[in-house]
């Protein structure tokens, strides 16, 4: 059973615009959420995290929003840059984390 879902396998955005990547989870016990960025043939790189006690965390161009009642989180990238083109994974959990299947973001110059 997939506890973390990323229902959009791909997303294309124009350079300079906002990218919004979505993630849903089913387990209300999840204490923490992570976003990773992955290039082909490389390991994922940690991007940003959010605790379940918060509803927003911001780091430069990246902001993660958490809606616990809806069991939904989203990653906003503003402004989007061509170098942001990668696969983005969200993960939720506590001691161990459950990953979504990823969303492939393409930023068009």
């Amino acid at each position, binding site marked *: 059973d997939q506890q973390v879902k*990323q229902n959009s396998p791909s997303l294309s955005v124009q350079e300079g615009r906002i990218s919004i990547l979505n993630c849903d989870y089913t387990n209300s016990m999840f204490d923490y959420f992570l976003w990773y960025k992955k290039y082909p043939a490389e*390991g994922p*790189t*940690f991007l940003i995290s959010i605790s379940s006690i918060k509803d927003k965390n911001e780091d430069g161009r990246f902001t993660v929003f958490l809606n616990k009642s809806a069991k939904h989180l989203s990653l906003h990238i503003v402004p989007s840059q061509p170098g942001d083109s990668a696969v983005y994974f969200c*993960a939720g959990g506590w001691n*161990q*984390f*459950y*990953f979504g*299947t990823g969303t492939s973001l393409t930023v068009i110059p």
Partner: protein
Amino acid sequence: SQTIHQWPATLVQPVGSPLSLECTVEGTSNPNLYWYRQAAGRGLQLLFYSVGIGQISSEVPQNLSASRPQDRQFILSSKKLLLSDSGFYLCAWSTGRTYEQYFGPGTRLTVT
């Protein structure tokens, strides 16, 4: 600073052959260690995690096993590979004091 190493980077093995993938972490002590697999078109699946030497928890029953012979060394093994074992294997570590996990470069395994 901390670094994580995995080898080999790529591996092609016949069905039924054994497997040994190694992961080492530098610059930290007593890390939590993880093995993940990413199959083609799939997300990251947690296979094993370890909170200390000799302590291994398995998430998915299969023909793979893991061992942690030293504090910063994590090994993924199989006695007989299956075609379905093909995938991208990732090792990760965390401090155990924070939740963030940091991944190695991965090993691309193709079972033929």
